[in-house]
């Protein structure tokens, strides 16, 4: 029986630093660990003493990929705390903005981070030579998401228009019509992307582990923005104000990030979780993409998260088009955001591209933040990655060490974890 020593310090093509450790002696597994060695970011401390008007701007900096998501979770929590309700128009445009980020993030993950695994390359760069049409499709869809965020959020990342009570600046009807046309073209590109992923789907490992999935749920919509917390383990949903009783955050000795568990030792969030809870509510365009893959509700192969993301790209594009149609039918109405400070506490929850996200803030009578609690999806997935490892490794322990390493890295990447940021300077010599 083989001796195995897999030690991956910092898994590649994920955002941030995670470490894989597997040791087996004479075929007997001695250690299987998913570790997160990242330093804490202190955002919850950073916002204390800051105005209710600034929270969404500060916390958007938690992440460059899901900055819109953090802004929206924060703004919902702030409005909940100070007792503000927004117009139907604001709600619709926020969701279109949120969807633009889902497009951008999912395409980034499937196209730039996962596709190289399926096509046997180290990164997306060599794919330009071998699969130029795939890369062109990925780039065009990525650009579509960025364009939507820039149009409604005012910037490609870290939106500046999102304010308590509404928007600081609204898109014009002409701009919305142009974006709708781009979305319609984007829907055709999703079909091309889906066909490519379908053709490679047999390269996704066949590994299934019965898992509790958690996501937002609401009537009538495959939701990313509204709703209560649902689990595949129970029928009743839980109000987002009670999210701490869902996440049950705890400290693990092998990680600087907190871990979570609800009805079992761990649970999973993300595209596959949303699919397993809300697949019946997909729009026809997205159901057609799901049918290409034969993706069934109840799927519990974590590697299929990327497939669910492709389905969701179709879903958010199709729903964006419908929401924009609704705004255009009513006409874009000029609105001035109205919000005033008030003592209170509020919770906001939205679905980040990589899973359900919770923000809670409390404010004093002057609107200054007195406490904050942010529970991120990647943190909620750490425990589940560990449990997947514990189930996967015995099944693959007889494979060559490099293959074990790759399968475990692919598993981590499938969760689309998003842990930090770094530098990128040039290093050149003149010729």
């Amino acid at each position, binding site marked *: 029986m083989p001796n195995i020593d897999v030690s991956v310090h910092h898994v590649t093509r994920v955002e941030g630093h995670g470490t894989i450790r597997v040791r087996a002696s004479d075929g007997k597994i001695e250690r299987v660990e998913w570790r997160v060695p990242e330093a804490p970011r202190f955002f919850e401390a950073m916002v204390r003493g800051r105005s209710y008007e600034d929270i969404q701007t500060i916390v958007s900096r938690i992440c460059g990929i899901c900055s819109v998501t953090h802004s929206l979770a924060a703004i919902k929590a702030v409005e909940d705390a100070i007792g503000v309700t927004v117009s139907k128009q604001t709600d619709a445009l926020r969701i279109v903005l949120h969807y633009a980020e889902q497009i951008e993030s999912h395409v980034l993950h499937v196209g730039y981070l996962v596709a190289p695994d399926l096509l046997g390359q180290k990164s997306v760069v060599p794919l330009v030579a071998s699969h130029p049409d795939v890369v062109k499709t990925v780039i065009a869809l990525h650009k579509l998401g960025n364009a939507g965020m820039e149009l409604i959020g005012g910037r490609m990342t870290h939106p500046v228009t999102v304010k308590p009570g509404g928007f600081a600046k609204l898109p014009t009807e002409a701009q919305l019509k142009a974006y709708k046309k781009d979305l319609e073209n984007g829907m055709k590109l999703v079909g091309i992307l889906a066909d490519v992923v379908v053709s490679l789907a047999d390269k996704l490992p066949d590994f299934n582990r019965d898992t509790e999935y958690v996501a937002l749920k609401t009537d009538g919509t495959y939701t990313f923005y509204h709703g209560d917390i649902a689990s595949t383990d129970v029928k009743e949903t839980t109000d987002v104000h009670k999210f701490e009783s869902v996440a049950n955050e705890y400290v693990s000795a092998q990680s600087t990030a907190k871990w979570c568990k609800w009805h079992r030792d761990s649970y999973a969030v993300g595209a596959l979780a949303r699919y397993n809870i809300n697949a019946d509510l997909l729009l026809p365009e997205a159901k057609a993409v799901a049918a290409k893959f034969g993706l069934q509700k109840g799927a519990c192969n974590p590697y299929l998260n990327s497939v669910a993301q492709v389905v969701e790209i179709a879903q958010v594009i199709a729903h964006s088009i419908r929401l924009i149609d609704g705004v255009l039918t009513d006409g874009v109405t000029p609105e001035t955001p109205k919000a005033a400070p008030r003592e209170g506490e509020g919770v906001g929850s939205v679905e980040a591209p990589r899973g359900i996200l919770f923000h809670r803030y409390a404010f004093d009578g002057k609107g200054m933040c007195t406490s904050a609690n942010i529970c991120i999806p990647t943190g909620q997935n750490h425990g589940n990655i560990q449990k997947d490892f514990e189930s996967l490794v015995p099944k693959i322990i007889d494979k060559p060490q490099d293959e074990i390493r790759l399968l475990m890295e692919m598993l981590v990447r499938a969760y689309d974890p998003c842990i930090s940021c770094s530098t990128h300077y*040039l290093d050149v010599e003149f*010729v």
Partner: protein
Amino acid sequence: MAEIAVVGLGNPLAGDEGIGGRLAEELERRYDCSGVEVYDLGTSLFNVVHVLENKAKAVIIDCALMGEKPGTIIKFTRDEARSKKVLRHMSLHEGDVFEIVNVAGRVGSGPPEIVFFGIEPERIELGRGLSASLECRFDEYLKEIASETGLVKKVAGDA
């Protein structure tokens, strides 16, 4: 759409690494940039492909390890330099702008003319702000980039 793109790259939280973004920001503040699109793309390297699309010329400003005295600025084209960077493919923030420019070219988004301005850092480490070696030459960098792109300073009161 403007025919020239000026792209500043770098992480402003990593000392001199953030020089590209700082220069892009100041260029827009101090110079009349009509006819030129200026981008501070931070560490979003893949977005370089998007902003180069349909441009006749691109000027890319980045911190560069060139073996020169800290603060040195060198203008070069893609053919005049070779990347020594070893990528670990750790994250989307890690990258090689030469590779990204190649990607842009291969997918038909690359402008026919691309000019790089590399600036040798004194220190790349966590923290805001530039080292003295770069700060004292900051105006000189701006002038060189403005000259390359034909920009003129805003008249007093416009800034």
